[in-house]
């Protein structure tokens, strides 16, 4: 485990993911049930997971508040995931690392957490690891906990505000019915929720600078992962089936002599269908 460095300088690692655009029209969303894969929608570019720019925004604010430090962005994915890293660089992040290897194809959240943890160990000293609260494609939300467990550092999830306090961070968490404030020593993993607020739009100048930055590309061997740990065969969570549920609609006119009778009949039918 890497310990926090003594200065006020802050080293933050942000994990971002490129996903199919969640606003892809239903008609364009297709699944290959035999291959258990989502078929990329024609003409609709993948996007950065919507929670991830908020994690980047949190990192940039903490770095800027410290006055010095570094924000390193990691993404695991295909070559196109470089765009997700470039977006974070255009927002103001300092360095980017793409984890790209054919053996990463089809891996699950646990394998992803292992790969990210190994990449973070390779990067070296860090104070804080930030991620979006979940990825909007699979929506498991377990990678932050997995990375924290593997690195042996505390994990705080669903943050709406993060404030650094010397060697610790105070985090306001979002609950179903309110908020919770916790404090944890650094280093730590924090997942960031949409309640954190709007991320900044990249400035044109930053986009130009980001384009000139080199994104390092690490394969499985670079982070010390063996083939048997990876691929679909190495999944901790084997995928049994992937399908789009059939949605059937039916219209039924509720009969009745009076409005009251119609309402009663409607209520009985809803109750019979266990909808109320």
């Amino acid at each position, binding site marked *: 485990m890497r310990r926090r460095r003594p200065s006020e300088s802050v080293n933050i690692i942000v994990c971002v993911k490129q996903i199919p*655009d969640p*606003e*892809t*029209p239903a*008609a364009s969303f297709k699944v290959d049930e035999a291959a258990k894969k989502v078929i990329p929608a024609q*003409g*609709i*570019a993948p996007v950065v997971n919507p929670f991830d720019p908020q994690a980047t925004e949190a990192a940039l604010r903490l770095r800027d508040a410290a006055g010095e430090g570094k924000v390193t962005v990691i993404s695991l994915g295909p070559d196109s995931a470089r765009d997700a890293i*470039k977006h974070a660089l*255009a927002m103001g992040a300092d360095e980017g690392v793409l984890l790209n290897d054919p053996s990463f194809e089809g891996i699950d959240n646990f394998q992803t957490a292992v790969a990210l943890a190994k990449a973070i160990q390779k990067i070296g000293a860090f104070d804080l690891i930030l991620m979006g609260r979940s990825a909007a494609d699979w929506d498991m939300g377990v990678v932050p906990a997995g990375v924290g467990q593997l690195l042996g550092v505390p994990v705080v999830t669903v943050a709406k505000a993060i404030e650094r306090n010397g060697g610790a961070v105070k985090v306001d968490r979002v609950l179903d019915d309110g908020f919770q404030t916790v404090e944890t020593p650094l280093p730590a993993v924090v997942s960031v929720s949409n309640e954190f607020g709007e991320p900044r*739009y*990249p*400035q*044109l*100048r930053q*986009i*130009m600078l*980001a*384009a000139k930055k080199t994104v390092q590309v690490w394969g499985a061997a670079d982070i010390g992962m063996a083939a048997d740990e990876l691929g679909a065969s190495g999944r901790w969570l084997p995928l049994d089936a992937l399908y789009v549920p059939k949605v059937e609609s039916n219209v039924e006119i509720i009969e009745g002599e009076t409005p009251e009778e119609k309402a009663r009949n409607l209520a009985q039918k809803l109750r019979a269908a266990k909808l109320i």
Partner: protein
Amino acid sequence: MARDFAADILDPIAGEIVTNVGRWVDREVKPQASEFEHADVYPDPLVKGMSEMGLFGIKIPERYGGLDLSFECYAGVCMELARGWMSLAGIINTHVLVGYTISEYGTEEQRQKFLPRLVEPEIRCALTITEPDAGSDAQAIKTTARRDGDDYVINGQKMWVTNGQRAGVYLALTKTDPTAEPRHRGMSAFLVEPGIAGFSVGKKFDKLGYKGVETTELSFDDARVPASALLGGKEGSGFQHVMSGLEVGRINVAGRGVGLAQAAFDDAIRYAQVRVAFGRPIIEHQAQQIRLAEMATKIRAARLLTFDAARKKDSGVRSDLDAGMAKLFATEMCQEVVLDAMRIHGGVSYSKELPLERYYRDAPLMVIAEGTSDIQKIVIARALQREYPV
């Protein structure tokens, strides 16, 4: 969701910039454009957002603190702004046009004085050519600038001044020699700063569309400016300088036509797939298929023509032919596509609840402004004559 056309066509950095502007437009502009437009309110928060992204410095040279991006990139940005609200591309137009004219034709003193202030921007720009009795015939202007010692004294009226109330510098076309023949040899442009005696901003026009941004009259009544305000420091080149600047303006307006047409098309193709008539979505009716195909083809052609004109301007050569063709085709196309989008929507398009009525009111501005379609045809014909000598 609109397809990301810019990324298909532009170089990676320009594509990334245009894509980011497009994201901003989708999130910040489209949801509130009609509200600003119907109230005819200047969109301060949106202009602030444009400023924070750095759009106002897009064409200012790097040595004066700007980004010095290509006209191709600028054209893409104009398309995206207009896809959200045409007026936003108008707000940036005169700023970029005047900044370009200063950087190309201004003295070093003028560049150093103004260009760094246009980046943030600390000041905004306006262009003043048109007068009550001179529009398409720009050489017929009556505003004069008479040398008087170390100063010039300007007298005259100007019309249709975009950014008229908010500009910190006005590029004003005048006649320093009203008797010169040909007439353009007696024309000179001045960089006029507001606040001087004899200079006043007149009424704000109530317009059919192009709302939010103010369009005003200007009046010069013995307005005295220092000789250092003469663009380039030399009399008689003003018409040429302003016409070169207008090539930039025509690329902007062509881009606006493409962006507005794209917005109308995006709405139309979405609606055509959900609106059912005669038992099936109307997109399955051949009449609508043909209409949508023609719309998309014309938009694509206008987009490529506009980028082609921008590339020509980037190469540093005269591009009146190319900018004229792009402006002519894109703006006429825009009017047709907007009306076609209304035909696809039917009666609901006539309601203020949808943005189509705004598109319909905004489209004609582009056919007229920055040189009417008829003027573009004359510009194109003259350029063709130059290219085909006998």
